[in-house]
């Protein structure tokens, strides 16, 4: 049990640093206009064990988002998107529930629930997160087209990084 909590704390710090120190530099576009960000840190929210209380998911997501915000200099932005994603996690999980139900001790990982299920789940969560992130960033429905374009580009690149990370480390918990 302790080691499980330790893994998640470690993952929290590692993803935070990876996002804040390295992935922050990968953002590209043209004509002086940023078209995508690579956001890998939602993987932490995605990988939290199934039995994690919803409140704890939201609080840890809030803290993680706030940490990323400190690196990005956008206080509140990533936090708001993360809390939103964390809140919707339960809905997504209940929608994707296999016919035989979840094993409560499981984590929603590729190793325990299979690659097709996991990538479907991860892509939905990532899509929600990116859409929320760019919506709050634009802060006005006027920029809806921008929001959609940025979400699509960022989704492709972020999903690429998530797949690589999951394939390399193949986390069980």
């Amino acid at each position, binding site marked *: 049990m302790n080691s499980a909590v330790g893994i998640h704390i470690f993952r929290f710090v590692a993803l935070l640093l990876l996002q804040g120190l390295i992935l922050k530099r990968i953002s590209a576009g043209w004509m002086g206009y940023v078209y995508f960000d690579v956001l890998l840190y939602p993987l932490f929210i995605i990988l939290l064990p199934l039995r994690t209380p*919803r*409140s704890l998911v*939201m*609080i840890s997501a*809030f803290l993680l*988002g*706030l940490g990323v*915000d400190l690196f990005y200099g*956008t*206080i*509140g*932005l990533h*936090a*708001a998107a993360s*809390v*939103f994603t964390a*809140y919707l996690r*339960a809905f997504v999980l209940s929608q994707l529930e296999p016919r035989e139900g979840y094993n409560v001790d499981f984590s929603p990982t590729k190793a325990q629930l299979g690659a097709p299920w996991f990538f479907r789940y991860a892509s939905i969560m990532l899509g929600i997160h990116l859409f929320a992130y760019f919506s*709050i*960033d634009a*802060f*006005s429905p006027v920029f809806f087209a921008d929001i959609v374009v940025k979400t699509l580009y960022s989704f492709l690149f972020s999903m690429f990084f998530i797949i690589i990370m999951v394939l390399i480390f193949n986390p069980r918990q």
Partner: protein
Amino acid sequence: MRGLYQLFAAYGNFLLFLALEGLSLVLLLQYNYRQQAIYDHSLLLLSSSAERQVDQLGDYINLRDEVLKLQGENQQLKQALESAKFSNAVQQDTVSNDSLEQLYTYIPANVIGNSINNTINYIRLDRGRKHGVAPNMGVISADGIVGVVRAVSEHYASVMSLLHRQTRIKAAVGSDGYFGTLRWTGKDPQYMQLEAIPKHAPVEVGDTVYTSGYSQLFPEGIMVGTVSEVKPPPGRNFYAIQVKLRNDLGKLRYVYVVNNLMREEHEELDETINE
């Protein structure tokens, strides 16, 4: 307390979500210039539109006072017009300001009763003897002439509308100024007949009809309407001209009673002749 606990049991996650999301957004607006600007701008738009609504309401409430103020101003302006003055100058080229004497003054009044659908129509005004209104004074509005005062009481006046079978008003037509008499046939409240314009006068549809100043009721040159139909009746020497009134007497609200300051002189003259 138990209710509060149940509330948290049922909606705890949602409340926590709202709290964290709210906290995030507060931080976002606190520390991020761009989002703050958008937020402030939206708030401004919202509040200014709300303010405009309230302003409009206030305008509407204050309209009455405004109208009274404007009436006073109009009265001053109308009296300052040259058509309201009497020129004492004998030689045309030595007209100076002090040779002009006030000929017409105006009394602002509100219409409190009106009809247009009878053959004899009267208008009731809320100004009477107390305010200087007397019988046989002309009544005009911003759009043209309205009628002639027939009777006055202490606070009210009864005006014979243009739309009255006995209305006879001297009016001129076109740039040449041929004059005739305006009458109402009792049919359409938008049209009057201009009679006694000689057949040799060049009158065309669209010509302006205006007061001639011969009747001492109205200053010269107030527009009455436009010629809408010209018919030379066979075997007569005068046109039958239909005039479309500029003034819509059906929606009359604010009028001015015309006071001719030299009316008594005219009456004296008339009496002298009749003797």
